[in-house]
Each structure stands twice: as structure tokens, then as C-alpha cells.
């Protein structure tokens, strides 16, 4: 490259998750879960999720036989992105990207509060007949949380990871 290093907006490293990021995590409807296959081939799905404030973890529910589950069994590193889109102004786009570790939790062992949270958030959408039988929960523990709003970038590293 004949050009020198181009300057960009600096990433601010912060000690606490910023409020903006928490707002997005609380209010977001869809999250995008990235997993990777054996040859580092990424796989991406849109997922319902709930954010648990105390443990700073994300929970998702999926079917047991799905592709992402078999990916996570082989490689627990995942990435979850939740964002707010703005079709008019690029500077109004904001989002949260969480890189961390995923763990599968059987629905019976899942904290009841989380199941209720999940059903409460998506019940009107899924309808009363949503089967929890052949499902499994995915718990994502963040290692690094990146947050952006317009041109501002923040990074939070989980001290408990």
C-alpha cells in the first residue's frame, strides 16, 4: 500500500457497558448470531434473544437439530450483533456486537425467569402454541462488547470472562 495509515475515529475502551448499548440490548427484537464451521466458514442466523442484566449474558432459544447448534458443539466462539438501523442517516446507525463463548442449556435446566422473559417478549409474535419441547437454549457470555453510535466506537472487555 503506498498510502500511510489512514486515520479513523478512535475506539474508546471503557470500564462499564455504556447505557446506549444496554438500551439497544434491552429493546432489540432480532439478534444476529454468527457461528463458525470447522474450516472457519462463518454461518449466520437471525435469532430471538433476551438480555439478562445481572449476569450480563444473552439467551436464545433454538431447535436442537439446527446447524448453529452443531457448529457451537464444535466451536464455542460466537458473535452476536444487535443493531438499530436507520435508512436515512448513516450517522444514526448504532449497534452492539458481542464476541464471546456460547453454551447450550437444556430448557428444563434454564432459569424460569429467563424462559418467562423470553415468552413474554415474543409470545404475541409466536402465538400460544410455541413448542418448547424439542428446543434448547444458547447462553452467550460476552468476552468483548463493541458498541457504536454513528462515528463513535466503544469497547468493553468483560472482567469476569
Amino acid at each position, binding site marked *: *500500500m*503506498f*498510502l500511510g*495509515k*489512514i*486515520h*479513523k*475515529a478512535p475506539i474508546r475502551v471503557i470500564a462499564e457497558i455504556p447505557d446506549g448499548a444496554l438500551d439497544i440490548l434491552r429493546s432489540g*427484537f*432480532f439478534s*444476529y*448470531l*454468527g*457461528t*463458525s464451521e470447522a*474450516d*472457519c*466458514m*462463518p*454461518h*449466520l*442466523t*437471525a435469532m430471538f434473544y433476551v438480555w439478562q442484566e445481572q449476569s450480563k449474558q444473552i439467551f436464545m432459544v433454538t431447535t436442537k437439530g*439446527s*446447524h448453529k447448534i452443531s457448529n457451537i458443539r464444535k*466451536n464455542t*466462539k*460466537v*458473535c*452476536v*450483533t444487535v*443493531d438499530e*438501523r436507520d*435508512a*436515512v*442517516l*448513516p*450517522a444514526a*446507525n448504532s*449497534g452492539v*456486537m458481542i*464476541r464471546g463463548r456460547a453454551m447450550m442449556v437444556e430448557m428444563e435446566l434454564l432459569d424460569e425467569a429467563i424462559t418467562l422473559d423470553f415468552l413474554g417478549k415474543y409470545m404475541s*409474535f*409466536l*402465538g400460544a402454541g410455541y413448542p418448547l419441547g424439542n428446543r434448547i437454549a444458547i447462553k452467550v457470555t460476552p468476552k468483548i462488547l463493541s458498541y457504536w453510535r454513528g*462515528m463513535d466506537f466503544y469497547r468493553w472487555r468483560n472482567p469476569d470472562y
Partner: protein
Amino acid sequence: MQGTADTSLYSGRKWIYEEIVDKVPPFRWLPPVFDVLAQLLLVEAVGIAGFLYFEMPLTSVIYGTLAILYTVVWSAGCLYVIPWLRRLRDPTNIEEKKVLKSYKNHLLLDRKYELAAGVLLFVGVWVFILIDPTFLEVHLGTGYGNLFLMALLAVLVWDVTYRIGLSIVTTLFAAMRSISLSRAARRRRGLEYTAYSEVRTLKYLDSVNLYWAASAVLLLPLASITPLLLYGLGAFFTAVLFLSGVSLLAMERVPWFPPDVESILYKERFAYVALCENDQPHVTPVIFVYDGKYLYFVVSLDSAKYRKIKKNSNIAVLVDMRDSEHVMNNRAVMLRGKSMILGEITLFGLLRLYLYGLWMLRVRSLFGRKYPRYMKYYDTHLSDLPLAWQNKPFISRVMVRVEPEKITYWREAKPQILRV
């Protein structure tokens, strides 16, 4: 039933003495490639024996050899085409399936068209020979009028004219198939489509028509003995080139993906890009355009995406239609494949710029049309933005082209995998 049809398809592509010789050892034991070579040698040996016995001039052996060589080069092409054609998978669109089926039937089972073309050309050439026999008198030496030699000559003339006729007929069928296929493809609904790999195979098979036409260059010295034959050969080349061009243009208009997938890729405004580095996935939202084949987005030279693509070009892109009111309206498409960076100022980057430069301008204008407000924002706020964000091609931003290899389509959370 299928098995017998296939064998007859296979034997349907043989020259006349192949059919006879196929029943005679040792040819029936040889694999097809050697079969063709062995017959070349046999026919050539008979020809040379005739040349020596009847004391023909040297030019006749050259002309004869070229004609035999033409038939052999032509037959070699067949050995590749037929298995490929049989391996074609059916489209999920019924109309397209019908088109391909009738194409295969015409090509492999129906011999009347090729026979008609062959007979027409054979009679034409033979009439021409009989009208002006001086050429034969000179070249056949003392053998002129010998019944055995004339029969051999007739077989050779038939072999050549039959192949030329067949070339024209196959090219014509290909052009007709391409036109009906692209017409049927543009009337697809829902998830109906022809997997792109099959369209590519058909395009490859069409190029064999050009190979067959090109092998007729071997006949040029023979045809140059009289302007009439030369014009005939010229007309043949022109017809094949024209029909192949028409066929290619029609095939280029066959959409790559089913309409449900295409409508999402054209209409939706945001995509999520997943990359992977050291087994750690990385997901970010981007704006993108789709040009009917590939998906493009733009990254900053300073971004993590750029760095990761340079290390590992595997990519997954998800485009979804969100509707938080109705579960039925949620649809998503995931394209997985390879990514390529366009617009870098490196050795390979410049080469790609040379190859794809004009197309990049088109992609840029697609961005302008799909995201006019974004582009306006980048123009008006140029001075406020850090360089990494400024919309300056080559200096701060490069384009990424995603070539899909696998598509997954979700409707109401039910995945369906489509072949590319």
C-alpha cells in the same frame, strides 16, 4: 427403462463404421478414447494403401488425412458432451424442466433433424463432385472409377457432411433451448429455479459447439479448391458463431436465484456480514447492492472487515425481511461463499481493477440509486468525517464482491437449502 435409454443415448453418437466396428474385436474391448484413435489409424491405413496402390498424387493423401482427422477430432468432443449432458440435474421450475427435457430428447434421441441436415449437405457435395469430376480425376489417379474406392470416398464424404450438419443442428437446438429457457426462467414464481451450476454446465456444453465448428478449420485446405465449397464453409462458421452468440446472450439473462430470494436481495436495505478469523466469527451490519449475480458492499481500508477478509475470504451474508407483527412475513436469505476485494492499489488489485473496473462503476451507480440519502450525507459531511469513513474509492474505501456458493432461505423460521 432409464438405463436402456441411456445406453441408446450413448450409442446414438457414433459414426457409421463405429457402429459396425463396435461389434468387432478388438475395438469392442477398447475404452472409447482408444476406440476413436484405433479407428483413425485403421481408416488412415486403408487410405494410404489406396494411395499407394492407385498411385494418387501426394495432395490427395493430405486432403484425405485432414478429412479423417476432422471426423476424429469431432468425435472426441462427443465423448465429453454426452456424459455431461446426462449428469444435468433437473430445474425445480416445471417449465424450465420441460425445456431442458425436450432439448435433451431432440439432441440425443431424435435423429431425423441431424440426418436431414447431413443428407442435404451430402447430396449437395456429391452433386458438386459429379458436375465437375476433374478434381476427382486428378486426385484419385488410376483409382478414378474404381467401385471400392468410390464407396470409400462416399463414406468419408458422408462422415464429414453428417458432422457439419450435426454441428449446425446442435447449435440451433442450443440457441432455441437458451431462448425458451431464459423466457421460462423469467416467469418463475416463488422458489422455482434452475441451479446456476446447471446453467453454467449448459454454457460449457454450448462452447463445445464452437469447438466442433473450430475443428472444421481442418477442412479449409480441402474446401479452398473451389470458391463454392469455401463459401459454404464460411457460411457454416458464420451460422455457428451467430447462433452461439444468441444462445450465450439468452443464457446470460437467466436469473441466478429464484424470485423470492431475488426480491429480498433487491429490496432490503441492510445486510449482516459474518467473517471468521481464528475460529472467532465477527458480525456487522452493512449496506449493500445486488447486481443479479453477486452481492457488493463497501468497507473502509481501516476496518476489521477488510483485515479479516484479507486473511480468510470465507463469508456469510444474511439479508432479512423483518416484520415484528406477523411471523409469516419474516424471511431471510443467507449467502455463503467467497469474498473478493476490488479497488485495492496492489499488484493483484490493479489487475482486478483492469478486469472489473467498468463493472465497479456500475456497482457504484447502483449504490447511488439504492441509497441516495446515504450518498448525499457522505458528500455533504465530507469534512466532518474521519478519513476512514469518507466515501473515497481507493484512498479510504474498497469494494467487496461476494460470490455465493450456498444459499439458505428461511421462511417462518424454516430453513431451506438451495443449490447455487
